[in-house]
């Protein structure tokens, strides 16, 4: 079985667009992970002028990277018995998110995602993001196609 470090190593992202620090747990049905938003992240310079707040699209991206891509790599590796030799290719196909509280520079966020279904290479998940005080930041549904030939 593929372990959390191997999952992160398989991610097709790098700085400044990698939003996964750690996978805390993962199984066939769900995944949990976290990311710390460094105070000097590039988007704080422009969002907003003189009052930095993490953009909702970046929170969505973070939830998608942990909740859909990392879980998808785990499920894909499981299917092929730990042989994810090919480069991971993924396309985001839908998002529906609701936001509740802001995330300021320097905060750590925790993502919990549950698989709704994984069929014909499409992975759809229910995702929730919490802050360090376990308050709900955002939640929603995100789906992607795994191993798409782009």
């Amino acid at each position, binding site marked *: 079985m593929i372990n959390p470090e191997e999952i992160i190593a398989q991610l097709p992202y790098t700085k400044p667009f990698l939003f996964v620090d750690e996978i805390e747990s993962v199984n066939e049905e769900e995944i949990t992970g976290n990311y710390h938003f460094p105070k000097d992240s590039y988007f704080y310079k422009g969002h907003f002028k003189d009052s930095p707040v993490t953009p909702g699209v970046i929170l969505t991206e973070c939830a998608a990277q942990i909740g859909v891509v990392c879980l998808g790599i785990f499920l894909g590796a499981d299917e092929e018995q730990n042989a994810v030799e090919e480069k991971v290719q993924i*396309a985001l*196909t839908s998002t529906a998110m609701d936001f509740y509280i802001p995330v300021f520079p320097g905060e750590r966020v925790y993502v919990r995602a549950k698989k709704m*279904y994984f*069929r*014909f*290479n*499409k992975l759809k998940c229910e995702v929730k993001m919490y802050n360090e005080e376990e308050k709900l930041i955002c939640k929603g549904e995100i*789906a992607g*196609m795994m191993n*798409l030939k782009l």
Partner: protein
Amino acid sequence: MTEKELIETIKKIVKPYVQREEGFKEFSKETEFIKDLEINSANLVDVILDVEDEFDIEIDNDSMEGMRSVGDAIEIVKKK
């Protein structure tokens, strides 16, 4: 279910995912999901999952790959 009823049922399933309305107006057995209706690959999966639920069947990967048109979908449903 008659063939006409089958086509109507599939039409109802497909409706929310259609991008090309002209293709939908001429909905028939020959209509292809991706070419004529411009349904994307992710939503094609949703069409298949909805067909499974509606007819209480399970569609495997091979059948899915052969499911290009409404007629293909009807054949799959009939076989199960």
